[in-house]
């Protein structure tokens, strides 16, 4: 428990004492939000669906119909 607390305080103090880091973390947060909450959710859904067998069937059809 003590170790976990020390690890927490290490990161907590580190983040609190950052200067330039605050701007960077804001950029990272915005970037991750755009990538995961917008692009991933609305634009980058996997195109194969179902069980592994169903996915294999979809790929089989795609590859052999060409």
């Amino acid at each position, binding site marked *: 428990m003590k170790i976990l607390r020390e690890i927490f305080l*290490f*990161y907590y*103090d*580190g*983040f609190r*004492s950052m200067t*330039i*880091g605050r*701007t*960077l*973390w804001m*950029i*990272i947060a915005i*970037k*991750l939000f*755009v*990538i995961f909450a917008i*692009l*991933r959710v609305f*634009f*980058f*859904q*996997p*195109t*194969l669906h179902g069980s*592994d067998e169903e*996915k*294999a*069937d979809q*790929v*089989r059809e*795609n*590859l*052999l119909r*060409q």
Partner: protein
Amino acid sequence: MNDIVTAIDWSRAQFAMTAMYHWLFVPLTLGLGLVVAIMETIYAKKKLNPDTPQTEVNEWLDLTKFWMRLFGINFAIGVATGIVLEFEFGTNWSNYSWFVGDIFGAPLAIEGIFAFFCESTFFAVMFFGWEKFSIRQHCAATWLTAFGASLSAWWILVANSWMQHPVGMDFDPDQMRNVMTSFVDVALSPTAVNKFCHVITSSWALGACFVISVSGWYLLRGRHTQFAINSIKVAGIVGMVGIIGTMITGDSSAVQVSQDQPMKLAAMEGLYEGKQGADLIGFGILNPNKKWDDDQDAMLMEIRFPKGLSILSRHDPDAFVPGIKDIIEGRDIVDGKEINTVNYNERILRGRIAQKALRDYNQAREYKDSIGMDNARAKLAKHYQFFGYGYFGKVDEAIPSVAMTFYPFHIMVILGSWMLAFLLATVWIVFRRREWIGYRIVGHPVYPWLAIITAPIAWVCSQCGWIVAELGRQPWAIQDIMPVQAAISSVGSGNVKLTFFIFLFLFTSLLVAEIGIMLKQIKDKK
């Protein structure tokens, strides 16, 4: 049909654009990580030596912290830009993603897990741990961050190398995917080892050029002169080792490409007709109307190095190097004997046989005909190495864009040669002829200006290297097995176009932010 073609082109453009943006950040992380680790080691040695004057210790601490800050900025802005490539695999290239199975997935998963643990621990110690860890522990964390970043790159390059030269797998028609049969063959394939060494050493050179370039700016302004000289000393050595390593591994790459991807090598040199003692083109302009099967000259003008290509690709000045026409017609000469490789018409035929065998296998499986399944599977295995050629209607479709391979290759070689000359000169000047740093021509200090322009040169050179590697192997997503038109998902081009521009905006914003924050840090340095 037109929408499929457009979707392929937009998906390729999107992948190329995101990969190129990602590659702006990665080599700096790899190169600057090593430079910072060496700087901190020097600082630690000085700090632990009681005879070192305190001012000198402080100088090296300041140096280490400054470059570490720029390393952190680059890392923070660049982190996760590679994730979008994985999204694109799943959405735009789903046939490919499924088809490569765990061969591709396993290295990427290892990379993801490894990167997360390395970055969240050692990276945090590096930035938050100055007061909480001993100097030795802190220095070890910095080295582990640099080492972890390189190891992370290893797994990505293993995946890429497998696409260039697929090994250690069997195709399973039931699962419709390639199954890894030897992890060692995949992870330690000569292509992967060589590619890793080439990428890492070239990144060292790039990181070093960045440090020298920023230091050159301080010299130009007459600010922080001793800081700049010390930085150039470390970066000069790293850069020199890096660029020499890049040249050596580039040479082994050329030999590998001549064996595994001869079409790429022919395109890199604009070589249509093979010859013994083939010349290397130092600089040239391609004839844009040249076709592989006509008699026009391939070049409008060129400067040649006699027998250079034979030496480069086969380490023998009199060796035969096949051109595009020879490769298509299946002709090569090895050890003085003419041999027949498999010509492209036959490859197309065998690719179609393999695809028909797969159809037969599926039909036999449906009817639970085990003998039919065995026969079809045996036929598929026999011709599988040419599976992808079955998608082509004619041999022309299997030729990469010669111009898009030739020009980046020659730009890379010319700029790489500049980096070699500049970095060797830098080490000589900074250690032996310090007074030359202030040498002026018509009132302008020469060295600082050359230093400043070398950083963008290094980036262009690095990008060109990847363009050659990736465009030179077109039209293949997986060499000889899966062309891009088979790898693409059934996606509409509209969606891909839209996300292309979203990525363009996002990554350009990140790049502008990075440059802005870095410039502010550099200008405001106390």
